[in-house]
């Protein structure tokens, strides 16, 4: 159960909102549980609903509405390339195409080892530093800016290596 598993975090999150407005905690709690498996399980959604005294449907609909919440497993890391207008003027589309070519995947399809899923996403507020992407993993969400395909492949090699060492 959520409150038993993360007593301190849950307490801290609930303290941000008036006691009669517990529902506001739904998004922070979803981020908290998403850390576990990289996605949000049905069980976790039910736990959050019970804790906040809302229906499971309410929680499921929030998960479905927001793009940073995931309800199924994907590659361990999501490499989310912005291809919106300002980035596209600085070569983001070609960057995405070449990166997927090098990895031998289509956009949105995980690499065969399950490490990386390359995705095309909308604006990340880094329009002056394209090509760029955010790397979303269980433990991190970080920006990589002014990137080249070569430097991105080096980053992927490093992620592979650290994954192997962790095993």
């Amino acid at each position: 159960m959520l409150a038993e598993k993360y007593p301190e975090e849950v307490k801290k999150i609930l303290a941000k909102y008036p006691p009669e407005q517990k529902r506001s905690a739904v998004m922070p709690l979803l981020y908290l549980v998403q850390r576990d498996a990289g996605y949000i399980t049905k069980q976790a959604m039910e736990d959050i609903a019970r804790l906040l005294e809302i229906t499971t449907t309410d929680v499921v609909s929030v998960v479905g509405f927001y793009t940073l919440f995931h309800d199924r497993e994907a590659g361990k890391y999501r490499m989310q390339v912005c291809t919106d207008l300002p980035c596209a003027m600085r070569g983001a589309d070609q960057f995405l195409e070449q990166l997927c070519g090098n990895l031998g995947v289509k956009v949105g399809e995980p690499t065969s080892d399950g490490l990386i899923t390359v995705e095309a996403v909308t604006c990340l507020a880094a329009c002056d530093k394209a090509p760029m992407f955010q790397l979303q993993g269980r433990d991190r969400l970080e920006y990589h800016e002014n990137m080249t395909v070569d430097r991105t492949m080096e980053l992927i090699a490093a992620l592979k290596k650290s994954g192997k060492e962790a095993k």
Partner: protein
Amino acid sequence: MDHLLLRHREIPEIKQLDVYRKNGGFEAFQKAVTGMQPGALIDLVKASGLRGRGGAGFPTGVKWSFIPKGVFPTYVVANADESEPGTFKDREIMEGNPYQFLEGVAIACYAVQANAGYVYLRGEFWNIAHDLDRCLAEMEQAGLLGEKLFGTGYSLHIHTHLGAGAYICGEESALLESLEGKLGQPRLRPPFPATYGLFGKPTVVNNVETLTNLPLIVAKGAEWHKSLGTADSPGVKIFSLSGRVKKPGNYELPLGTTFRKLIYEYGGGIIDDRPVKAIMAAGASSSLIVADDKALDTPMDYASVRTLGADLGSASVIVIDDTLSIGWVIGKTIHFFKHESCGKCTPCREGTYWMMQLIDRIQDGGMTRENVDLLHNVAREMQNKCLCALGEFATMAPVTGIERFPADFQPSVAGGKHG
């Protein structure tokens, strides 16, 4: 002139509390709480002429004065959901000069007597939210937040709240819904947030850059602020410059600086020294401005940009050179708004979908008079019918692109990225 908002450009350590305080930090907040009536503070900000920097350009002090007297609790929400293609100024403020922003939030809270403020950040600003949490904890420790501040009866707490990837949450009523734990979909208005905002209570929603101006206005006065910029648009503004320029980035300049100066003097001119073809002054939601000499010499203030059939908005200036086709440009903006439409109202949900189908068809070898007219017609039919501004935004580039750049939509044009 030294930066007023991007002060970390001169003082990189200003993101540390002691350095910020050595440079006058939190004196304005203390002065307000210990020496000013909330009403006098609102009058000061009104007199300064500060207008909202998020896009609408509404006078900040006037917005505050809509908060009804004697109804408690009230809330202040900082809109840090910066998500529009072309916009990346609030991110730099929060990363580089976080305490000036947070002091601004605190001043706004005192002005409307809110005891709680929220900073709503887009989910991708996860690291920034963690850094702000650390800043807020240090402020509590230093007695700048908490109970009975500076020996007065005033108490204040500020919290961060992360969104999770939805452009629509930058729209203030959708942001409030999201902060309440619901889907980020706009509310029908009226009532406006000033009377029925967060948790149904009177609420002020201000943009990050707007709030970051406040400590200086309180410290230096309304007349000082009015001495910067133009009479209609006082103060400095951060212009986010992107697209086909040599030196993209944020430039803090007085309102009223010309497009030409921004693009050529600060932005270093166009890549490969090509001619500039079109300008979007307010990100992906802009009208497309034909970049002739008249436009380039137009001062970037709220009233002057309007004479070009466009808005200054958040001053996110996207520069398009002559290598790019306008069909490709509007294809990009249409896809963005189709993706971000929240689905609540029919004109936007269906209209953005139809526009996407049409622009895809046009770019896929279907550049005919009929298809272009149909796209123009669908966009026009959406206007003035959507529940919030996003639907309206989605139509701006297609309508003005087709009307102002007819050569790019002739049947002889292939419709790809380069025409």
